[in-house]
């Protein structure tokens, strides 16, 4: 009797264990990692908005996930290197924070796949697409396919310190209309005791920040892009390139209006930010990222009085009307976003998380952390007049980098060209010739154009 009841009890226990095992396995959440986001508002959004919101949402939908945002401590170029090596061997996070201009060369290398190929029909059925403007869809796109969802776009301007300008006797608000106006302001500031009044990025250690915030901002002002979109050729020698290099030479070598050290040192970009925040630099050409993430109170080089003293002016052309497309002022835009790793073991869940990240509720939460132009039209910018002004005044002037797989290697040569001039290794003419040789090597002579006529 006792024997029999024990046996029943044992069987009962066994059944219970089996049943609970089945239940647990049905509810076992899969882990979805999100990699490549640096500390700051973007990471806070992932950790405090996306994680609770999307875990709950996907759990309700019967796809339980654990979302693990992995903070990236390093530069954007460092993450590009990491992600190329990861994807090359079929590894990496499930959701990746990618810069839009990496996409063409990644696609050609087979490292990323279109969203609909990774996650299937669910991607096409997402109702969020209707809320995202065409221009933003293409930021993580290439040849008509979409590889990720853009977080937003940006634009570049001259950030300046109104307090230093007033001390030096320059009227604020300040709107320079030529390079000479910018240099003249720098001279006045230097005379008034500002050590390194002007920062225009140069050199290889800043990576793409040199090309976008420095070289291209000047080159566009001299009337040209790095690439001729009409003929499909890379411009390797031209008066505009020479003017740009002479501007660098003037700022860093002849007049010493900017710090050569910031351009050449390993941590030069941070040094320039620090110098601006401490009042040793008064003008700095940067994207709105600078306003949102660097000098924002609590940012890496936060300024508690940011809203009072930091202003922006549009980047002027060399002479009025001489800018790219005949413009008086120039700027250029890029954008980052989130993409699915084609190697993910859980594509359905990863897409679920990505779609939830870009839901209206999630992006509204993001805007509370950091007001910015978001990807969705149903999420308005709130409460930051500077960001609104950039959206309405600067963004209409913008252009983009050539979305071509060779761009990155040409860009690296442009960075090297500026470094050669700023460091005094080469004259502007010699640096341009070295650039021409290197670019011809990369893209082939038939894809380049020499506009110096010799």
């Amino acid at each position, binding site marked *: 009797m006792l024997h029999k009841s024990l046996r029943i009890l044992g069987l009962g226990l066994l059944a219970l264990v089996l049943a609970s095992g089945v239940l647990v396995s049905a509810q076992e959440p899969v882990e979805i990692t999100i990699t490549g986001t640096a500390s700051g508002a973007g990471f806070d959004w992932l950790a405090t908005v996306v994680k609770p919101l999307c875990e709950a949402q996907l759990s309700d939908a019967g796809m339980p996930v654990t979302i693990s945002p992995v903070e990236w401590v390093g530069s954007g170029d460092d993450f590009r290197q990491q992600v190329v090596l990861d994807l090359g061997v079929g590894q990496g996070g499930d959701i990746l924070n990618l810069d839009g201009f990496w996409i063409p060369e990644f696609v050609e290398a087979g490292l990323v796949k279109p969203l609909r190929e990774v996650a299937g029909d669910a991607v096409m059925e997402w109702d969020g697409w209707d809320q995202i403007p065409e221009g933003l869809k293409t930021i993580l796109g290439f040849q008509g396919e979409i590889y990720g969802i853009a977080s937003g776009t940006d634009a570049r301007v001259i950030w300046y310190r109104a307090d230093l300008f007033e001390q030096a006797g320059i009227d604020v608000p300040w709107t320079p209309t030529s390079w000479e106006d910018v240099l003249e302001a720098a001279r006045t500031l230097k005379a008034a005791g500002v050590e390194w009044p002007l920062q225009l990025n140069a050199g290889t250690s800043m990576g793409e920040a040199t090309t976008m915030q420095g070289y291209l901002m000047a080159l566009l002002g001299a009337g040209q892009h790095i690439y001729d979109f009409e003929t499909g050729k890379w411009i390797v020698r031209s008066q505009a390139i020479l003017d740009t290099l002479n501007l660098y030479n003037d700022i860093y070598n002849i007049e010493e209006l900017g710090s050569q050290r910031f351009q050449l*040192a390993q941590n030069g970009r941070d040094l320039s930010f620090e110098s601006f925040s401490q009042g040793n630099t008064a003008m700095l050409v940067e994207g709105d990222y600078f306003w949102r993430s660097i000098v924002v109170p609590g940012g890496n080089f936060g300024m508690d009085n940011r809203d009072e003293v930091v202003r922006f002016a549009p980047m002027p052309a060399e002479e009025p009307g001489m800018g790219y497309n005949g413009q008086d002022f120039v700027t250029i835009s890029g954008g980052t976003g989130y993409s699915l790793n084609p190697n993910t073991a859980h594509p359905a869940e990863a897409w679920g998380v990505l779609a939830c990240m870009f839901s209206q509720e999630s992006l509204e939460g993001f805007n509370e952390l950091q007001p910015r132009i978001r990807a969705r039209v149903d999420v308005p910018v709130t409460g930051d007049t500077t960001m609104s002004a950039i959206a309405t005044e600067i963004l209409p002037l913008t252009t983009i980098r050539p979305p071509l797989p060779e761009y990155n290697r040409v860009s690296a040569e442009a960075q090297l060209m500026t*470094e050669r001039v700023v460091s005094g290794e080469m004259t502007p003419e010699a640096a341009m010739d070295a650039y021409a040789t290197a670019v011809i090597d990369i893209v082939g002579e038939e894809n380049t154009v020499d506009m110096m006529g010799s």
Partner: protein
Amino acid sequence: MQRSILSRRISVLFASPAFIFIALFLIYPFVSIIFISMTNRTLVGATAQNPDFVGLDNYIRLFEPSRWMNRGEMGFSLYITVQFVIGSALIGQAGLGLLIATLFQRRKGFIRELVFSLAVAVWIAPDVVVAFAWFAFLDPFDGTLNAILGALGLGQPDWLLKYPLLSIIFFNTWRGTAFSMLLFSSALSSIPPSYMETADVVGASTLQKLRDILLPLLRPYIATDLILITLWTFNTFTPFLLTGGGPAYRTELLSIYTYRTGLQFFEIGKGSAIAVIVMLINLVLASVYLISLRSRPLEQPSD
């Protein structure tokens, strides 16, 4: 006639794990790198998926005379590396190591222990920690070195920007002297004290003792030391943490050049070609080492 305990077949069996290991981790990568170096393979872009066979193009481009010595090219990098090896390994580490070992020869006490402990501690400390310490040391405004120089009224140069190569030569000397010091120290202790005492009795000068007793006896050790540290210094990557190879490629050692080309610019084909050349240079250095080891008994004084 002595028969081996093991048959030939059994010995091959026992040796096979080692052979497989070597084939898998040494010969296969070696051959594959040679193969990749003859393609235009990259890690991004179209040539990542469909590389073309380009024969010796990568090598020809590396050695193209018109830009061979430009900054950021093969010749310039080799030139930097040679200066770095001569400065930091041959003169710096071996010279300083020999000096310290000779100074503390047959001495005991606190100072010797302190010097030896510090040198060894520096040698075994992790790279990243050491790099941070040197950033603090060399900082132009708040650095220890410039604080000292400034107090002495000697000026405060921006070391990593104005004298980058000199900085990494000093850095690597400081970092690696312990090996030479320990090797020479034990070599010196193997010289019988009676040699030196006899020399003292016959009234030999310090220079004569060094030239006629110490150097001939130390010669094989010096040869071993020089070749080993040359090989290590030739391949070291740690200065990257201090300068990243810059500014403007002025500290781009061959190891950093290889890394930049293959893994930062993602031109893995060209990077492999550089790696093959570096391997060949290493092979020559290693052969010199092995040959000198074999001929060592002949170098020993016969009397």
